[in-house]
């Protein structure tokens, strides 16, 4: 464990076992190492269409971590370009189905719908926030990256990323606590003390 933001950052290994996330709480800093998959709007649409047709998905959903991101092209000799998170709510229509099929965690930024929160709680999953607009900083934690599906989608292709100490914050935990509500309230309460 590493001391970070005044709290101990919990190290998580991806693919992510449900038992490893059942005790993390909204607001906790985490560092993720292992294999995660990028998927955003167009890739989610295709994944769900594949499920409709009973086709095998291009990566195993069980215990998977999906990163809502579309990186910039890698410069020669670099594994990846800038690689920050995109806004998550656009994936809300698809997320509950993927969580029900074993997805452990989503990394993104911004609010989620009540349906997604309920699906996180129901499945013991977690929603993590990465710092939006810090694409250069986050890129440094990506050691390797390769396309696993939908190359024709360009930045929206599904990429496997091998990450080391990818920094994130627990936004919605497995009990349904939401940092966007708690953090704001704690700050405002502190003003009236």
């Amino acid at each position: 464990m590493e001391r970070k933001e005044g709290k101990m950052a919990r190290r998580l290994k991806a693919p992510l076992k449900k038992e490893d996330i059942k005790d993390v709480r909204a607001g906790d800093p985490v560092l993720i190492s292992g294999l995660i998959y990028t998927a955003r709007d167009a890739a989610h649409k295709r994944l769900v269409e594949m499920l409709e047709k009973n086709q095998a998905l291009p990566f195993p959903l069980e215990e998977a971590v999906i990163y809502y991101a579309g990186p910039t092209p890698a410069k020669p000799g670099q594994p990846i370009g800038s690689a920050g998170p995109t806004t998550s709510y656009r994936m809300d229509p698809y997320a509950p189905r993927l969580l029900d099929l074993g997805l452990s965690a989503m990394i993104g930024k911004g609010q989620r719908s009540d349906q997604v929160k309920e699906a996180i709680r129901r499945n013991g999953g977690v929603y993590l926030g990465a710092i939006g607009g810090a694409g250069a900083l986050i890129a440094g934690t990506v050691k390797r990256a390769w396309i696993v599906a939908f190359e024709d989608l360009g930045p929206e292709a599904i990429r496997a990323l091998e990450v080391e100490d990818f920094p994130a914050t627990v936004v919605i935990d497995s009990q349904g606590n939401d940092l966007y509500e708690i953090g704001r309230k704690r700050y405002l309460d502190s003003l009236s003390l």
Partner: protein
Amino acid sequence: MRQIDVSQVSRALAEMAVEANCYLGEDVCGAIARCRKEETWPSAKDTLEKLEKNIALAAERQMPLCQDTGMACVFMEVGQEVHFTGGSLEEAIHQGVREGYKNGFLRKSVVADPIRRGNTGDNTPAHIHYEIVPGDKVKIVFAPKGFGSENMSQIRMFPPAAGLQGVKDFILRTVEEAGANPCPPIVVGVGIGGTFDRAALMAKQALLEPLGTHHPDPYYRAVEEELLERINGLGIGPQGFGGRTTALGVRIKTFPTHIAGMPVAVNINCHVSRHKERIL
């Protein structure tokens, strides 16, 4: 007449695309640094420190600050004494964007059709706005616009009776509903008056003004200052994790309007508020 070859426009835009995406303007860097010093909430201060690290790293490695290198918004102020030669100005603008995004390893984020989608593969077409002004110079402003924040923007046609109160409530509500989505701390551009389209254009142009500048009319300057204070009292904070620093600035632009109307547009930008300017 002053002759300008359109290839000069292409070349300028190709360079500006990279500059805008990798090097954040001093006004924005300064505002983030100031907010970090003034921020009292520890986790918010920590987030702002990380944003500053990202700014330094992007410049050092000439890497995009954010992976959303935006839709290319190009604002052309063309002196009426200028004669463009060497081909189509419009095509030259697209060509500059094409080259900048390819050679600068920037993301291609444009789809050919809003419903049927399909990435164009070179980040064109650019969104271009032309203005004809006196003189023989050409001013080019390049502003890549990310859609995390663009999606949180709103426009509303108010009746005049809604008054200043209605306008202020609408701006605050837009920011509060946006919450964590547009990557706070945000910059808020507001257009009041004109027509439906003019209000939206002014809101975007307000985002191109340097942070720290104000509406020339003290009446609106006071509104800008009051709104910034109230937005930073919402508690959303950097990344929406709580804190004071929700916005770096609020900038209003106004235009005369119709007796029946009071259009208000709110265009939101993230903390990576990018724009570069060049004069030919």
